[in-house]
């Protein structure tokens, strides 16, 4: 990740202007203006994305890749433009390396079941890290169970960083695949994925990067990372839910068997045999989320229009400020203190259970995530059942952090 140490005034994010683009920020919750600090769970949608999806349905919605009529051609064209937008967003060499899917979870399952079933056998190993969320654990568990392979886990340090020495030590000629989060959802840790990819490649493993949390915060370049697969979800980058993509190196995708069968993924079908369409369509059976995919393209267009470096700089500043403000609260402990962090503040507050924190804050109009963040092993690692997590996005500002601190004051009043 390259986070600019300084930003020129021109590159600075105009947060007030950004806020005006989110209709939901006008909503009140329990009579208070919404303070949305849960973008790591799912991001709110800017007007540009809402409009893009509505425009599809109002003006040119149709099925894609199969009609000769004008609407179908318009929809196909827009959908394929979205694919190209994803390609540029990820820095992939070719658009055929982009499989449009329902999100990161589906992408991980695709790799596990298509590449994994063909290439992982008895006695082989799959390596992940201790900070993974469930969608980068369970698909590999299913694969390993089926194939008699083992799942190995590189531990994390108290800071929430992966123990890189242990990661390297766990790699061996038996390691067929290593799958690592670019950014941890529960702790915010930004992993050194370039270096980890290099290590895993040196051992001969194929490398999957789970970019669900990275995509909204960190400029991504799959060619520079050098990974073989990269997955992300549309709903976390201000796009529609149930959209997302898998990048896969063309040579790997071509060698992989289809995953799901159906329309659009075939080139010919007879009752005795079917042949497969070319990549990426081989992995896109059935009618996809047409309008959602097109709106995902609009979301990336919008986000890149803000300037990814300006967004990262703003979120970095909010993270610094938030860390400072929360650290002053007696009894509050931030969980996850990696040197390189995305704008996630996971914390515990004395003996107060995160659910109680969440309920009190909700009454102040403040939305945070409480619980295990679909990363139970991370919670176990720190010996806590759950944390409260405030996650910051491009539209969050100092007032949101001040509201959070005031809200936590009310929590302490009630439970102190």
């Amino acid at each position, binding site marked *: 990740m390259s986070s600019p140490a300084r930003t020129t005034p021109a590159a600075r994010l105009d947060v007030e202007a950004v806020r005006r683009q989110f209709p939901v920020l006008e909503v009140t919750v*329990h*009579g208070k203006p919404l303070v949305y600090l849960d973008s790591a769970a799912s991001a709110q949608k800017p007007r540009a994305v809402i409009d893009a999806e509505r425009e599809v349905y109002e003006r040119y919605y149709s099925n894609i890749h199969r009609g000769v009529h004008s609407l179908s051609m318009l929809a196909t064209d827009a959908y394929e433009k979205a694919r190209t937008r994803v390609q540029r967003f990820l820095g992939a060499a070719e658009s055929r390396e982009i499989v449009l899917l329902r999100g990161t979870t589906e992408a991980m399952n695709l790799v596990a079941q298509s590449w994994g079933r063909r290439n992982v056998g008895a006695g082989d190993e799959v390596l992940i890290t201790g900070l993974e969320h469930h969608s980068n654990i369970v698909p590999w568990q299913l694969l390993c169970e089926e194939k008699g392979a083992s799942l190995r886990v590189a531990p994390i340090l108290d800071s929430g960083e992966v123990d890189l020495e242990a990661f390297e030590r766990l790699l061996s000629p038996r390691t067929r695949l290593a799958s690592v989060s670019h950014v941890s959802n529960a702790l915010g840790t930004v992993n050194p994925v370039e270096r980890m990819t290099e290590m895993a490649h040196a051992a001969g493993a194929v490398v999957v990067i789970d970019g669900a949390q990275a995509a909204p915060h960190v400029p991504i370049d799959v060619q520079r990372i050098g990974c073989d697969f990269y997955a992300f979800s549309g709903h976390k980058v201000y796009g529609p839910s149930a959209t997302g993509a898998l990048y896969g190196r063309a040579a790997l995708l071509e060698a992989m068997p289809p995953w799901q069968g159906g329309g659009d993924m075939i080139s010919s079908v007879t009752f005795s045999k079917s042949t497969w369409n070319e990549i990426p369509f081989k992995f896109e059976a059935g009618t996809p989320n047409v309008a959602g995919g097109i709106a995902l393209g609009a979301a990336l267009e919008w986000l890149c229009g803000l300037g990814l470096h300006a967004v990262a700089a703003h979120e970095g500043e909010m993270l610094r400020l938030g860390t400072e403000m929360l650290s002053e609260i007696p009894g509050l402990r931030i969980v996850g203190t990696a040197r390189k962090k995305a704008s996630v503040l996971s914390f515990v507050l004395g003996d*107060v*259970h*995160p*659910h*109680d924190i969440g*309920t*009190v804050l909700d*009454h102040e109009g403040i939305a945070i995530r*409480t*619980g*295990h963040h679909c990363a*139970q092993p991370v*919670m176990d690692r720190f010996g806590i*059942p*759950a944390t409260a997590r405030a996650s910051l996005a491009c539209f969050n500002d100092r007032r949101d952090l001040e509201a959070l601190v005031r809200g936590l004051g009310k929590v302490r009043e*009630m*439970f102190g």
Partner: protein
Amino acid sequence: MMDLRELYQEVILDHSKRPRNRREMPEANRRAEGYNPLCGDRATVFLHLDDGIVRDVSFEGSGCSISTASASMMTEALRGKSVAEVEALFQRFHELVTTGPEKAAGPELGKLAVFGGVREFPMRVKCASLAWHTMRAALEGGGRATTE
């Protein structure tokens, strides 16, 4: 707007900060573990049944203030009751946190009535009922209860 104090009544806060009967019970002849997968709350409920009467009841576990207070107050409510009375109280409590206490039938809830505010907070109903479901699983012979 629902006042938060309706949910977090003083007696609930008191029991969550100083839970009663939170201890292991080696002599228990019924026990069960409960788990709320949504939030990770865990509770183990211990019962000592003698002649169909709850002679002693205790719990262990970690959870939010609602689930801890609910477990604590449940142990106070159940001691000395027959299995049939316990079952009736379970039904009554369940009604209280889901549909409300308006229905007059059933045993008196006594102090447990403070959980009436929970039903305004649908996400917290499972917190209030975890210990009760676990207790019921223990009565039925042990094992695991989840709120799912």
